[in-house]
């Protein structure tokens, strides 16, 4: 049964893109057969769409590759936020701790920061082969630092009463790259402070681990780069002077819907 009126533009679009039921489509097509005015309109829209789609296809440039490893890591942290970040203190408390440190006359290198004090935290790795390191699962990788060990690290850094939410107890050489649960391999990193925070370091570690496991980098070399200066390692591996936007921001706020 052909439609007894002219088809509107949006109806022609629905027809062209197959967005209507078979019955409606048949009725409209029957109208097109009988109505040259609608037919012309239909043809014009069809060819404009084809031209546009062709032009669009031609204009598409290759996209950068997806960063699936980074996404998986972020999902792991989102699913178990407490597994890695244990000790965090408010910014004000952090400031007080630093002020107290100054008063005690500690050398500034002792303060918790983006880079550890190399005397307290030189970095320490377990004797693992590449195969063993690459067999480490996400669960091992995101395990929490034992509380007693964390307390020892805070003592070493002369941080008396770390309150929740200002620090992340971070491995200098990450467990996923063979780093040990050892006081020599841990330091309190300010959480989310400054651009060189633990999020950025996580991204570097993911990247390095991929390279180690696909054979493009030596495990020992990666471990020593992390131990020496992870920020310098980041800059050289990502060819940038500052953290990439994708690594810098780390969403932890409640999901928006």
């Amino acid at each position, binding site marked *: 049964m052909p439609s007894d009126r002219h088809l*509107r*533009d*949006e*109806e*022609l*679009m*629905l027809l062209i*893109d197959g*967005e209507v039921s078979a019955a409606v489509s048949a009725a409209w097509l029957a109208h097109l057969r009988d109505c040259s005015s609608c037919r012309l309109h239909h043809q*014009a*829209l069809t*060819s*404009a*769409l084809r*031209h*546009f*789609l062709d*032009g*669009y296809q*031609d*204009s*598409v*440039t290759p*996209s*950068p590759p*997806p*960063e*699936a490893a*980074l*996404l*998986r890591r*972020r*999902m*792991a942290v*989102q*699913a178990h936020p407490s597994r890695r970040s244990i000790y965090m203190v408010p910014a004000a408390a952090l400031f007080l701790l630093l002020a107290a440190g100054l008063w005690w006359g500690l050398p500034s290198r002792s303060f918790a920061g983006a880079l550890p004090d190399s005397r307290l935290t030189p970095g320490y790795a377990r004797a693992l082969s590449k195969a063993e390191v690459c067999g480490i699962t996400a669960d091992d990788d995101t395990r929490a630092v034992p509380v007693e060990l964390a307390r020892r690290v805070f003592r070493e850094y002369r941080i008396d009463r770390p309150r929740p939410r200002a620090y992340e107890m971070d491995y200098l050489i990450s467990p996923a790259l063979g780093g040990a649960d050892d006081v020599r391999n841990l330091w309190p990193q300010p959480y989310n402070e400054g651009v060189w925070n633990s999020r950025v370091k996580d991204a570097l570690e993911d990247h390095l681990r991929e390279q180690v496991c696909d054979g493009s980098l030596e495990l020992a070399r990666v471990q020593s780069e992390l131990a020496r200066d992870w920020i310098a390692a980041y800059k050289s591996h990502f060819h940038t002077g500052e953290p*990439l*936007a*994708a690594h*810098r*921001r780390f*969403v932890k706020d409640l*999901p*928006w*819907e």
Partner: protein
Amino acid sequence: MSSDAWQLVSSLLNRTSSGAPGLTIEDEVTLLYRELHASLLRYLASLGLPAAEAEDIVQETFLHLFEHLRRQKPRHNLRGWLFRVARNLGRKRAALLRRSPIDAVDDPASLRCHSTTDPEEMAAWNRRQAHLANVVQALPERDRSCLLLRAEGLRYREIAEALDISLGTVASSLARSLGKLDTVNRS
């Protein structure tokens, strides 16, 4: 992508009930991320976001999906839902960037040069592409988004969900824009 993986992805996108058997939510999210990554980057570029920011927003979008699936929220029209989340996050980010314009130096996606060796053909092609790009750029944001999402292969119900408009509005927006492009093609 292999045809098996493709089937899996399309079944995830068109599924209305629970997840795929044998897949963790992380696996599902990763599959969809890989599948829609490029499309979402192009869509965000069309909203004026620099490439580095766009990748970050795509990641955030899929972290929202991860949370959405973990809470067993509805799965119908996931593709539309993902573009909608990306659009909201993208607009927020774009507003932030406008407040600190130093960061916003990147040029949003522009049209690529045609890979032909004939200079005359190339010049004609470039003229037409530039013309096309001008018309598309001049469209209101909603019309431009409809057109782009259609070109990315979204169905009308997905575009409607992404842009929070009715299906009829999608159809009339596309007709209006194509009418303008048709005039360009004829001239």
